[in-house]
Structure formats: structure tokens, C-alpha cells
């Protein structure tokens, strides 16, 4: 039960984008169309779950025994960067269809700080392996949900006449702010 709550908390209550303000760069960058936003969301779900698992393993099996946990940032960045590269190569060979679908978003995830955020938060909260992976999955699903909703709203806005001064990013930022306020309604729903 707790594990399901953990996923739900990752999606709604502790939404990485709208509550914790991580991963804003791809959130604003690839949210012009619902289609691309969904692609990015899928890629993030895939990589973030994997990254959470591998980062947890590196932390528990290498950093803790050697008493060098203060190096976690460097270690996690190393893990995520090479993991993304590896996943890209693997998919290209093993699942070309999926590789085509995720396309350019896969390498872009290297720069998504939400992925690093998940690894760091898992460590700080002392989650065990399963909790860590589920937290990564839930958080990434939350990211995908947020970016798809956001892209839907931006598509609608793009069809309308907007004041020149607000065109483009100003409106996107306002929209993101309003969405964030809306997601504030979930806070306190699940306490972990």
C-alpha cells in the first residue's frame, strides 16, 4: 500500500516540475506540441526509473562502504550521463521502433535535472531499492503528466490572439505558474 502511495505522491503531491521545480528546462523547451511532449515524457519515465535504480546501487555498493558519500553528486552525474548514452545505443539496436519514437529526446534527458534530483532525494530520504525505483517511476510519470497537460494548454494559447509583450515564453511561464498553483491543491493529500 505504501508503495502505491509513493507512486501517487510522486505524480501529484511531490510533482517534480510543479512542486519541486526540477526539470524546468525540458518542461519549457519541448512543450509546444502535445505529441513531442508525450515523447519526452515517455523517454523520461524510461530513463528516470533506470537511473534511480543504478544510482541507488552505486550509492549503496560503492560510496557507502568506501565512506565517500560526499562525492554523490559527481558519481550520480557520471552514472546518469553514461546510462543515457548506453540506453540510447541499446534501444537503437534492440528496439528500433522505440528508439524512433523517443528520438532526439533521449540524449536531451542527460540535461534533465529531475533525473539527478530523483537520485539525490532517494539517497537523502534513505529509501530502499524498490522504494527508490518506484519513486523514480512515480516522479517521472508526474513529469510526463505535467508536460503533456502543459503542452495541451500551450497549443490552445498558440491558436489565440495574445498580447505581443506576452507572446511565447512569458505566457508559458505564467501558465506554468498557474498550473503549479493548481497542483498545490494536492499538497498534504499523502504524507510519507
Amino acid at each position: 500500500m505504501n508503495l502505491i502511495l509513493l507512486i501517487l505522491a510522486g505524480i501529484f503531491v511531490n510533482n517534480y516540475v510543479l512542486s519541486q521545480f526540477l526539470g524546468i528546462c525540458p518542461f519549457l523547451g519541448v512543450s509546444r506540441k502535445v505529441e513531442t511532449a508525450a515523447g519526452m515524457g515517455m523517454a523520461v519515465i524510461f530513463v528516470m526509473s533506470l537511473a534511480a535504480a543504478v544510482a541507488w546501487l552505486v550509492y549503496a555498493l560503492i560510496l557507502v562502504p568506501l565512506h565517500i558519500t560526499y562525492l554523490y553528486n559527481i558519481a550520480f552525474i557520471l552514472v546518469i550521463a553514461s546510462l543515457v548514452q548506453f540506453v540510447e545505443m541499446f534501444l537503437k539496436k534492440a528496439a528500433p521502433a522505440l528508439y524512433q519514437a523517443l528520438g532526439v529526446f533521449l540524449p536531451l534527458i542527460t540535461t534533465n535535472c529531475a533525473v539527478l534530483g530523483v537520485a539525490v532525494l532517494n539517497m537523502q530520504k534513505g529509501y530502499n531499492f524498490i522504494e527508490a525505483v518506484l519513486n523514480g517511476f512515480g516522479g517521472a510519470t508526474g513529469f510526463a503528466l505535467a508536460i503533456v497537460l502543459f503542452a495541451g494548454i500551450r497549443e490552445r494559447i498558440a491558436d489565440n490572439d495574445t498580447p505581443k509583450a506576452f507572446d511565447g515564453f512569458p505566457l508559458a511561464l505564467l501558465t506554468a505558474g498557474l498550473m503549479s498553483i493548481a497542483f498545490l491543491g494536492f499538497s498534504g493529500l499523502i504524507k510519507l
Partner: protein
Amino acid sequence: MDIYNIINPILSIGGLGVVFGAGLGIAGEVFKVEEDPKIGEILEVLPGANCGGCGFPGCGGLAAAIASGNAPVNGCPVGGAAVAEKVGAIMGIEASASEPVAAFVKCGGTCEKAKEKYEYFGIDDCNMAVQLAGGGGKSCSYGCLGLGSCVKACAFDAIHIVDGIAVVDKDKCVACGKCVDACPKHLIELLPSKKKVKVQCSSKDIGKNVMQVCSVGCIACKICEKNCPFDAIHVIDNLAVIDYDKCKSCGICANKCPKNVITGKRPTPPAQAAPKAEAPKAEAPKAEAPAKEEAKSE
């Protein structure tokens, strides 16, 4: 101070780096995907605009399709003959030059010439307006709404709303076909850019109804059909349609059209304007004579 405090981090993080690096190196070999070297070469010569005009997802998609033989070497409508030749050289095939085409908006109903049913204040998008009663604000249900869905679709800044209708800038148009898909009224067509005569109307209404809503609409009078020396223009479903395989761009139909629906008018008489008249031009005055008689008899 424990020497291991220094050695451990160096070895472990350095070790991780080496392991991951080596892992990626091995993975790169193991998961190597055999790619046709031609794909890269073709991609080099393609324009790289990723407009999707060829029907493939971007230039990369077309390059892969050409290399595997699923697309012709002249598959890129943007690059035209020049690119087709280069791609053909890579593939070892003679490129058959495709005739250059450009988008053309088949409506001339500008603000003064066509009437409005009502003033439209909705979302600035043809696809939205067309869902309303009567298919948008224009009195002519076939006409250009002028809300610019095609303008938004164009990646090359080649189509603009001028005086209430979409107008294509021929010099900028690369014939990618995006606007053709974007227009909910299906007004835009890719037509041979060398041909001067084009019917600038899409109305299939009968002549009387067309006259009520637009001063430059095709009224299906068939004067063009009767005057064409090449049997290249016909009125089908109350609308003049040009067969570009037969059309020689003589411009007779444009000069004869009582509603000025057909573009490509020539200064009359053609023989005086161009003393060294070519064959089709020379035929023009001859064809005019019987046409006048016919018009009178009608």
C-alpha cells in the same frame, strides 16, 4: 591523516569513470547498427530544413528511404533538380528532373471583391472558423477565409495574408506542401510554376450564386473552354479547370475571361507587344476572331 581518504575517492570515482567509459565503448561495438554510408552522404546534400515536404519525417527519413530504394532520388521537392542530380550521383542513378512546382491559392476574393456573411471574431485560425455555420465568415463557401492557417504552417515565410486572402510568394515557395494540408477549404494546390495561367477560384456554385457573393468568381460561362486553341481548359462542376499537360500558357483564356478569374493575362494584342511572336502567341488573334462571333451569337 589516513592516506585512504585521498586514494579511495580517486580510485572509486576514477574507476567508475573508466568502467562506464569502457562499458560504453564495448556497448558501442556490440550494439553497432549497420548504417548505409550512403545515408550520411545523401543527408549532406539535402537542404536540411526538415520540412517534411517529401512525406518522410525530416531529411534523415528521406535519406534513409532513398538509400534503401524506397524513395526516388528526386524525392526532395525543396531541393529540386540540383539536389536530385547530386543525390543521383551518390546513388549512381540519372536524375529525372521534376518540373518545378509552387503552391497556388485558388481564390481571388479579396476584401473588396468578395462579400462577408458576418464578421468573424473567433480564434484566429481557419480550422476553427470553418466549423461555424456556413463554414466561416466569407459569403462564398469555397473562398479563402484569410485567417492564416497556411501562413502558420509555412516554414519558409512564403505565404502571407494580403487584402484578406492568402497569397504565395513564388520566389520563396519550395513546394513542400504544408499549406496544402493546412487549408481546410482545400484551396491551395501545387501547380507548375512555369505555367502562367491559373484559375484563381474554387467555387463550384452555379454562376448566378457566384456573382452574388464575389466579383471575381468563376461563373462557368465556358468562354475560356471555347477559346482555348489547345483543348486545355474545361469547365467541370461549374469551375474552369486547366489541364497543364496540354496548356501552353498562351494566355488567351485569361484575356477572354469576363470575370478576370484566370491569372496570366497578356497585353493585347499579343502580336504588337512582342513583335517576334512565337507560334502560340501568333495564334492568339486568330482565335480571338471566332470567339467574338461566338460571344455575339450567344
